[in-house]
Each structure stands twice: as structure tokens, then as C-alpha cells.
């Protein structure tokens, strides 16, 4: 588990990414279209939000070229033959899979590999990921639109601050 190192080197990430993307039959690939009000700004915000705080049950980190999952949701393991292996890896603090994300041309590409998870668990994991991705896309679009409503000249900001201070003083005056 190369990604189990607390701060993996860029070369390690790059190596894993190459293994996942270039070796045929190693990883499962998924893609999800991302719909932003403004593509460039939306993509930048999306990548930033992905690593800022946990996205649902996922905690992600980013290297130069790729975003990767460093911890994921607890998965039901009753139907999995490798329960002990799963528990071991979870206890050691890293997920029993590799999951790397890239965004190109408004599409999220997911590269996934696990030798421990069952097919059903993999499906649960990916469904979970896409659910939180869709929620995050909506949130990013809302942030962009809210910022646009608020966008004003610097002068207005100063006036607004003065006005808010006056408002607070008004409230302090007994009626």
C-alpha cells in the first residue's frame, strides 16, 4: 500500500497513477460528467473543495496532477471473504483500495483498484463517491452564484461595513 505513507511523495503518486491508468486490466475506470455554471471556475473550485475538508465519508488529498482518496466510508463486509484483510487495513488507517480522480473537459475520471473488496462493495463505494460528487458540484455552483450576487466594488464593501455597524448600533438603542 504505497499510499499508506502519511505524505506520499509526488513520484509515488505518479507511479501509482501510471499503474492505474496505463496498465490494462489493472484498474476499473469510471467517468462522471460535471456540469458547472462556469466550467473553468467551477472545476477549480471543485478541485479545491474536494481536498479542503472530508467530502461525505471520503477524505482526499491532491498531488500536482491527481486527487486521491486517503480514507473512505466503512463498508459492509458481511459478504466479503477477506474480512480480516479489510479490518487490518482499516485499523492501519488506510483504505483497502486505490482511488484516483482527475478532471478533464468537464468530466470526472475515476481510476479504481482493489484486490480486497468484493464487486458489491466496489459498487457501493463508487455509488457513494458519485453521490457526494454530485452534491459537491451543486454546492460549487451555488457558491459561484452567491459570489456573483455579492460581487460589488470595493467602495460598496466599505459602505456596507459602515452600514452594518450603524445597524448594530440601532439595535442597541432601547426602543
Amino acid at each position, binding site marked *: 500500500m504505497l499510499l499508506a505513507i502519511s505524505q506520499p511523495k509526488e513520484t509515488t503518486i505518479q507511479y501509482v497513477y501510471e499503474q492505474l491508468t496505463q496498465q490494462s486490466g489493472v484498474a476499473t475506470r469510471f467517468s462522471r460528467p460535471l*456540469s458547472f455554471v462556469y*466550467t473553468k*471556475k467551477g472545476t477549480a473550485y471543485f478541485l479545491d473543495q474536494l481536498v479542503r475538508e472530508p467530502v461525505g465519508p471520503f477524505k482526499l488529498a491532491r498531488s500536482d496532477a491527481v486527487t486521491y482518496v486517503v480514507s473512505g466510508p466503512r463498508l459492509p463486509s458481511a459478504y466479503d471473504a477477506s474480512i480480516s484483510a479489510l479490518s487490518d487495513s482499516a485499523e492501519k488507517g488506510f483504505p483497502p483500495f486505490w482511488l484516483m480522480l482527475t478532471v478533464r473537459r468537464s468530466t470526472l475520471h475515476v481510476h479504481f483498484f482493489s484486490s480486497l473488496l468484493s464487486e458489491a462493495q466496489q459498487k457501493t463505494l463508487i455509488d457513494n463517491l458519485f453521490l457526494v460528487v454530485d452534491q459537491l458540484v451543486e454546492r460549487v455552483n451555488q457558491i459561484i452564484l*452567491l459570489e*456573483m*450576487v*455579492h460581487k460589488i466594488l470595493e467602495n460598496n464593501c466599505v459602505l456596507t461595513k459602515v452600514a452594518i455597524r450603524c445597524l448594530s448600533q*440601532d439595535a442597541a438603542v432601547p*426602543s
Partner: protein
Amino acid sequence: MFVTRRCSSLLSAPAANAAHDASDAEALPVEDDESPNAGSFSPGQLACDLVFHASLPISWRLQGARVLPFFASQFEYLAVGNRANTYCYKSKDAIFYIMFSVPELPQADKDDKEASVKSAELRIDVYGLGYPSEEITEKFIQGVEARLAKQTLDALSTQLVTP
């Protein structure tokens, strides 16, 4: 001069009965040389959740119809240009939009003059991406309450001096 804030119809669909709201300004501008993909969304699809609301009683001495225009003039610096009675407020790095309304009274209350003046209220709905800070839930609401009280006093004074 204030640069008027404009709200996209994706964030807040224009009111069906407000003709002046449905202007060409609904179109999103070009940002950083990038055209918007507004066509991928329907009006109101990206609306934020209602995260806080407050109701303030309106004194029977104050005509309900005058309350919203009064706050429109008081909060001009926060007003969203293409949405009536909607204001934008940034608090601790989070942006909210706030809608003021005076809900229509039920017909039964309208017929009863006394009931209608007693139950009129100013409703303040706050929309955003998280629960607002005290700056909105307390200070802003107290500010609105104080101005409403002052407006009531002004109305009372006018009534007293006018024969």
C-alpha cells in the same frame, strides 16, 4: 454610486407575478472570458436551502403595505437589483440572501379588521449554504426589529400631529 447586485434565475427563480423581475439581466455575464453554461440548468435549480427564518409582528399602527418599501430604502446598500425585497449579506466568509415578505392574511382574518391588524407580520427568510452566524440570527434581526419599532413610532407621531 452603488453597483447593483444581480441574482441569477438559477439561484432564485423570478416571481411569476413580478414583471419587472423577468428582465434580460437574468442572463449570466461572461466571467474571466468564459461564457456561462446556464442552459444546462432550469430556473431555481440551484436555489439554496432556507437556513433561518424569523417573524416580527407589525404593529396595527403601521400599515403592512408600507413595511417592505421602508426596508427597501433602509437596506438599499444590501439590495439585489432584480429581486424585489431581496438582500445579500456576507457574514464570516459565507454569503446569504435574505428575503423580506409580509405574508397574505387568510380571508377570514381580512374580514375581521381587528384580527388583520393584530396578526400582520414581517417574515425574514435567510437562504445559504450553512447555518448563519449570530451576526445574522441576532444582530441583523435586532437591527430590523429596532427599525420597525422606530417606523411605528414615526407613524404614531404622524397620526398624533395630523388632525
